[in-house]
């Protein structure tokens, strides 16, 4: 294949450029979204002072918002984003599976509810947990765990068991884990709110910032693992497919380091790397949209290719987890011992 000629190579290069362009557009959209609403404000409030000022004007209470509530709301947002990803992804994949088992509706219902309570939580600045949110998040976490069990069972019963064939094409092992993770993040946010503002926030007896950093770090690693498996199935036919198996694992490692090391600030590299990961999540959706185009009939045949092509809603789960990691950093900025 060394003799593959220049014509082919240039076509391939053009394709990758097109893919890059689509990814870049998605990236731009992601940047815009993040800048509008998702950019976590650091303890140092380094970002546009004027904008912060305007917000303070609209919401004078915000100045006094306890850091754990701020972090909790960021977590609501992260859980909501992750929940959106799992809602859309499970909807597409379970529709593809014809909802053969009634239980396949569960992640849709739970993720939709989670989305609603996360929107609620994002607006709620009260420093107390909310019963409905709490219950919904807990239900989501349990659904994710049960779903993982279902998926493991589905793979195990196919001929070949835990073979590559079944890992590639059986029920995806990692997907329900994302539902569980978003539920956990939400549940965690409610626990955060329960802390008193003048104490070092703790959740389940652990320092909240570090524990959250560890949780989102593990989530990033696991999600990268799933992307790695599925991109291996796609034979990494496009070099951009290496992005989700390089950038998020590094973010996960940086968060792990944050959780384990001595208090230190500022963590510029970690913060920027998490932002990059968050953007990559959006870019991934763009790449996947381009991947759909490369199936027979492209977007004209969307009703088949959205199901067959790469899952468009999946990559933004990296964004959700990166936002959770940023929330952890925010907490640590406020309480270095948290």
């Amino acid at each position, binding site marked *: *294949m060394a*003799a593959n*000629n220049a014509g082919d190579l240039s076509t391939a290069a053009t394709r990758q450029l097109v893919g890059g362009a689509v990814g870049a557009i998605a990236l731009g959209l992601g940047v815009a979204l993040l800048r509008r609403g998702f950019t976590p404000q650091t303890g140092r409030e380094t970002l546009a002072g004027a904008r912060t000022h305007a917000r303070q004007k609209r919401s004078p209470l915000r100045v006094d918002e306890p850091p754990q509530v701020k972090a909790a709301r960021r977590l609501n947002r992260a859980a909501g984003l992750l929940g959106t990803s799992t809602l859309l992804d499970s909807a597409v994949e379970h529709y593809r599976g014809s909802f053969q088992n009634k239980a396949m509706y569960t992640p849709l219902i739970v993720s939709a509810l989670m989305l609603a309570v996360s929107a609620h939580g994002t607006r709620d600045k009260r420093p107390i947990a909310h019963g409905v949110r709490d219950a919904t998040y807990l239900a989501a976490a349990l659904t994710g765990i049960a779903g993982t069990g279902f998926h493991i069972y589905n793979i195990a019963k196919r001929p070949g068991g835990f073979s590559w*064939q079944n890992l*590639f094409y059986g029920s995806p092992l990692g997907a329900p884990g994302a539902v569980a993770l978003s539920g956990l993040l939400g549940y965690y946010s409610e626990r955060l709110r329960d802390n008193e503002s003048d104490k070092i926030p703790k959740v389940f007896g652990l320092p909240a910032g570090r524990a959250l950093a560890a949780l989102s770090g593990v989530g990033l690693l696991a999600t990268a693992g799933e992307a790695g498996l599925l991109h291996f199935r796609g034979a990494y*036919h496009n070099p951009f497919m290496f992005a989700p198996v390089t950038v998020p694992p590094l973010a996960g490692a940086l968060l792990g380091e944050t959780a384990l090391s001595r208090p230190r600030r500022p963590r510029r590299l970690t913060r920027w790397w998490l932002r990059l990961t968050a953007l990559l999540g959006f870019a991934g959706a763009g790449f996947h949209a381009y*991947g759909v185009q*490369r*199936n027979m009939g492209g977007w004209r045949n969307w009703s088949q290719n959205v199901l067959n092509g790469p899952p468009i809603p999946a990559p933004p789960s990296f964004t959700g987890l990166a936002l959770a990691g940023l929330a952890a950093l925010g907490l640590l900025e406020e309480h270095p011992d948290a």
Partner: protein
Amino acid sequence: MLDEALHSPRGKDGRAPDPLRVGGWMPMRQYGENDEVDFAIVGTGAGGGTLACKLAEAGFSVVGFDAGAWWRPLEEFASDETHQEKLFWTDERICDGDNPLKLGSNNSGKAIGGSTVHFAMVSLRFRPEWLKSRSLLGYGADWPLDWREMWRYYTEVEQALKIAGPVNYPWGPPRPRYPYRAHELNAAALVLAKGCEAMGIPWSETPLATVSAPRGRSPPCVYRGFCVSGCSTNAKQSALITWIPRAVKAGAEIRDLAMAGRIETNDAGYVTGVHYYREGQWRFQRARNVVVAGYAIETPRLLLSSANSQFPDGLANSSGLVGKNLMAQTNQAAWGVMEDEIRWYKGPPSLAVTEHWNYTDTGKDFFGGYAYMSQGPLPRAWVSSLAGNRGLWGDALLRAMEKYNHQAGLKIVGEVLPQERNRVALADEKDRYGLPIARVTYSLCDNDKALVKHALNFMSQSLSVVGARDIWTESDDTCHLNGTARMGDDPRTSVVNADCRSWDIPNLWVCDGSVFPTVGGVNPSLTIQAIACRTADRIRAMAAQGSL
């Protein structure tokens, strides 16, 4: 409209069809008939197409000829089994012997790209010992090739075709990872898998030449199921969409609807070019070398019908072996009805394979081996099997067809022994070009029959242990044709040497399945392409040394 390509040649006036675009064209270099090109290659399939590409990329001037049409699959391949017979070689032939061959579908091809346009894409390597089957296993003949060298060329072809195969292949020496991942198994493949597990033998996803992820302008396979009628999406990595476009880009000229009729020789005993029929008249292309790559029937037919006073028995035939040792692999099946819906028409027909009986030498009362694969005949093929081989008709046939979606089956690609009595010769009758028709004589030997019996017995058991009912076996079918111009180390017992160069005429070559001394129990296309790649490398090396 869908058969336009059959009526007038498309590869002319400096351009050729681009099979990867609707209505597409690509520029093509053209040679004059008086230009003495480096290589005239007759046939553009797995052998000729691959060689044309590799030689053109090595800088040689190449003209390829094919009797078939130059299709654009995206717009000209119908979801219609009967219509797609336009891809088969259905010219008249005479078949006799104890087991006369049924020619014209799975064992033929008439198109740019040859039979790879409608092959089942199964891309298996030879078991290394087969290349020395006489010395190591006690039957057949030794090849003049070393398996380690072939292993490298297999890798080259697998990369060139982006073969989608399993992460770990259970048989044979280690091989590099297949470039693309295996396809998802359909229910028919799972029947094979469960059967193998119940019988205690390994199975695997079949390495296939259809992409499981995008590749250039090939979208991933959509599991349409018409693979052996021609892939209309270009997921199939046939010679038509891989080697041929590469060849054209590298400066080769390919002439479609060009039927070669005779190879000319000069007084010095060298070939000088090819007579071919195109656009209503006979023409002659001068060439320094001629490569015959017309598959196991047309190759010997062309060599034999090119006989002249200097070579009265045909070209390259001092051994008397041209046309002899024809090997048609056995292709018998066991079929059964499953309780669950199978819908075997979904996806490539042979998604799962077991090569257990290729690699196991004990428990067999015959020489050679066989692989068997899951099956997915389309309705027309299935009804002709039920009517022709099972003898059903009328109401019984109707009722059997109603079970189509529950049907599962296993089919072998079985090794047969080379026998000189199995041969291609020339009949007295002439075809529409005035060329003598091929007479194909074929008989199975006792060893071949013992292999088939073993396979049918094993496959029937393996269907029965997974709950299939109404099991029956189809015992009269053959597939790939090989032999008829075997390669070897000795000019007395072979037609060409390891480099596919004829012993008798140094500038006459044969490069297709004809050169196989034995066939093994795997589909031959990957091996044919690997041999073509090797031949191209050897030609380049010889040219560099001045020994071409």
